[in-house]
């Protein structure tokens, strides 16, 4: 089939839905296309909350400075100013849409403390804030009757005269390819956690939008900046929210010490995530860990706080770590969680390619620079999701649909035929993905070296070669998850290569990017963004300046 819309949003997490709602409000025809049903999106996993300077005595400037400092001065300050200035309005809007935010004793919005923040400015719904926000946005998408292509996988972008004009999409239920034409496309496809093993990310976080935009000529920015979350469960990488520490949990080592006193004497457990993760890894590496972990101790919080504010993670710890946090400390360790880098956009969510807009984890505005503060990610989704919707709607009024019809899908049909058609038994996608994930986690983790990164790049390049010979065993059309897994792996390999190259490129330590061979921050040479462009040969590396409006870089201490 050939479908036509003014604005096509790929991805239906909070950024995508917020973008779709805004574009609809602007009066254009909008469709959302997602490889899972909208409420299955990974926004669900955000537990702790969403930041805004709404409380008396707080200010957007304070929120902005915390974010700038958290980013290790790599975030663009004009973008961060937008984020923090628009935050209060967005929270109020979400509340009006129906989000069941926690209240204080006066019935007003109640906030909690979070890492790297100088004020308690995190608004929340128990410990499933992301889920509550996502479901509310979905409700609004129903209210606005937004057309949703659910369980459609975008296989490529339609590019014409250097501009993006929609996408080709595989309908998972039937296995049919469709042409979805649009005058503007918003990519809101989330992160790429599955390129790492383990990761807190859902199985659907495979960097699809990043790979699509990169293939379409848009540069990926600061891709070396990978966040390791300080509190993940060893057995399966599941996340324990930072809100646990926000509510007062301690981190202790095998000697029973609150070791953060050595690394961040003022903020202790609530220092920035990169700082806490490095501290934990150092404790573990120096032999003060417990079976490859340190301990998260919540016992002093008492059962009431735990069961009303942290009920979901209490269940997770019982299910996956066999520990009831009311009674025992939970063994945790740093785990891959988030990518600060992404498709380079400006503060209107526009990329360098005409017709492509991006928002959320898949984008890099840049708000988070070298390290994202907890509860700033949900905020990014609504502020820049809305901006993407506005920009794309405006652009769509002056652009035209692609020429051509169903034949636009021909190339993708050939590719799929080649993947499923091979009779010889090539390698399977699953084990290749696992190898990729283990490689990335080993060499692009909390601590990095030149040698390690070169090894990683070398392996990723070889994996890409092997990928060309894989065979999809499932030859069926309906819900061929084997085929989508293979397509996703292709996306992850592209993005993983970019991560390795960017990490080799940045020869300093900043934020989450810690190079043992370049252990200090080097503002003279590296107060700038890394950019990676796709070419016919090796990717092209470049840099872009960091926008500094009012906060000059200083040494970062917590």
């Amino acid at each position, binding site marked *: 089939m050939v479908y036509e819309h003014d604005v096509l949003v790929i991805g239906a997490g909070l950024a995508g839905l917020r973008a779709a709602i805004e574009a609809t409000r602007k009066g254009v025809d909008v469709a959302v296309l997602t490889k*899972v*049903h909208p*409420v*299955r*999106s*990974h926004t*669900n*996993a955000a537990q702790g909350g969403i930041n805004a300077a709404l409380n008396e005595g707080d200010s957007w400037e304070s929120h902005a400075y915390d974010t700038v400092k958290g980013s290790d001065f790599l975030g663009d300050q004009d973008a961060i100013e937008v984020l923090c200035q628009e935050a209060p309005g967005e929270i*109020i809007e979400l*509340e*009006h*849409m*129906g989000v*069941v*935010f*926690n*209240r*204080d*004793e*006066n*019935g*007003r919005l*109640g906030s909690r403390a979070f890492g790297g923040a100088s004020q308690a400015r995190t608004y929340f*719904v*128990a410990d*499933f804030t992301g*889920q*509550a926000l996502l*479901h509310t946005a979905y*409700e609004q998408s*129903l209210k606005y009757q937004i057309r949703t292509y659910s369980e459609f996988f975008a296989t490529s972008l339609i590019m014409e005269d250097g501009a993006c004009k929609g996408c080709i999409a595989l309908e998972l*239920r039937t296995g049919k390819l469709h042409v979805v034409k649009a005058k503007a496309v918003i990519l809101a496809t989330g992160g790429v956690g599955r390129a790492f093993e383990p990761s807190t990310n*859902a*199985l659907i976080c495979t960097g699809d939008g990043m790979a699509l935009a990169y293939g379409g000529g848009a540069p990926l920015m600061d891709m070396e900046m990978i966040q390791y979350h300080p509190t993940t469960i060893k*057995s*399966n990488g*599941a*996340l324990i929210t930072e809100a646990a520490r926000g509510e007062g949990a301690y981190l202790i080592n095998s000697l029973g010490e609150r070791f953060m006193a050595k690394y961040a004497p003022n903020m202790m457990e609530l220092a920035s995530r990169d700082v806490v993760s490095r501290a934990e890894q150092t404790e573990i590496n120096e032999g003060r860990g417990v079976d490859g972990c340190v301990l998260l101790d919540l016992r002093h919080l008492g059962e009431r706080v735990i069961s*009303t504010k942290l009920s*979901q993670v209490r*269940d*997770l710890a019982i*299910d*996956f770590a*066999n520990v009831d946090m009311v009674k025992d400390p939970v063994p945790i360790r740093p785990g891959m969680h988030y990518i600060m880098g992404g498709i380079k956009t400006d503060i209107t969510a526009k990329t360098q390619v005409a017709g492509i807009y991006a928002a959320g984890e898949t984008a890099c505005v840049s708000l988070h620079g070298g390290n994202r503060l907890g509860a700033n990610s949900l905020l990014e989704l609504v502020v820049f999701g809305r901006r993407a919707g506005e920009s794309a709607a405006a652009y769509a009024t002056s652009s035209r649909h692609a020429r051509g019809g169903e034949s636009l899908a021909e190339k993708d049909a050939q590719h799929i035929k080649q993947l499923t058609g091979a009779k010889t038994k090539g390698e*399977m*996608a*699953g*084990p290749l*993905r*696992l190898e990729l994930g283990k490689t990335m986690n080993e060499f692009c983790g909390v601590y990095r070296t030149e040698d390690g990164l070169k090894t990683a790049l070398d392996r990723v390049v070889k994996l890409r070669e092997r990928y060309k010979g894989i065979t*999809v*065993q*499932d030859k*069926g*059309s*309906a*819900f061929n*998850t*084997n085929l989508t897994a293979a397509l996703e792996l292709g996306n992850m390999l592209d993005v993983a290569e970019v991560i390795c190259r960017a990490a080799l490129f940045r020869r300093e330590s900043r934020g989450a990017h810690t190079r043992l061979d370049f252990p200090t921050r080097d503002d003279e040479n590296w107060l700038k963004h890394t950019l990676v462009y796709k070419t016919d040969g090796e990717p092209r590396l470049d840099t872009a300046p960091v926008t500094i409006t009012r906060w000059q870089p200083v040494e970062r201490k917590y």
Partner: protein
Amino acid sequence: MEVKLRVRRYDPEGDRKPYTQEYAVEMPDSATVLDSLIQVREEVDETLGLRCSCRSSICGSCAMRINGRARLACKTKVVAVAPNGGTVNVEPAGNMPVLKDLIVDFEVFWEKIKAVVPWLRPEGPEPEREYIVDNDKMLNLNTTVACIMCGACVSDCTSLEVDPGFLGPAALAKAYRFVGDPRDGHKLDRLKQYTEAHGMWDCAHCFMCVEVCPKDVAPMDWILELRREAEAEGFTNHNGVRHGRSIAESVKEAGWLDEGKVAMESMGSIGEKLALVPVGMRAFFRGKMPPMGPMHYQRPGAESVRRIFEELEAKE
């Protein structure tokens, strides 16, 4: 440990009817059923179809029947359902058409969610800031907001089995989420709509949804709450309301249930009452007629039962 799985499979393109296939995979002791299924799909049989994503019981993708009961595969440890190394039975969720293997069609599920008008509809001008609301009311709603729409309750709902049109536990829990929200301005419209056919009164309170819900939403509790709200707001012209009241009356009266009387009193119209006659005849000829009228004697202890009623009524 070795995990043995017996998976119900169905390929819509093949000509085979649903069949079962057995797999065995080596897994760590902490493995969940989902981990094991993924292991099968990645290393043994790539054609196995299932939905899954977050692995942390928050996305709601992987509800399926495990050993005959709806569960999230990612929240179910193998050792919990097959403690002695037995085989784990895995089937698609119930009450929804199977599309492929463990993948079921959620279309009707979402249609029913849409049918309850699932968005906040405040009345009057919006406040400049947030609505001022008591935190306990918000915390009360949290229980329903925690629903991840996995469909486990729908899978095992016994009312849906006999009445596919029933809105079902997930949609009705969602309905309460707005009825109970002090910010919503359409409580009465909503209650009126939900009392209609296939609505709140069609639940048979079998507790299955409460038992299988992986997020402790307890949909049935909210259905009962909807009924209380509906009655309190005067939506009483309904067989469900009459049924409940008649049961209470007859127990209060005689200390036990007068089934015949309850059946008659539940029916709102003459036509419905008449329709019970053949049912009664059949019961009579098969010797299953409950004691009615003068036969419905007072049980010993009826006095004590009545006192319980009176004390409860005094408290209200």
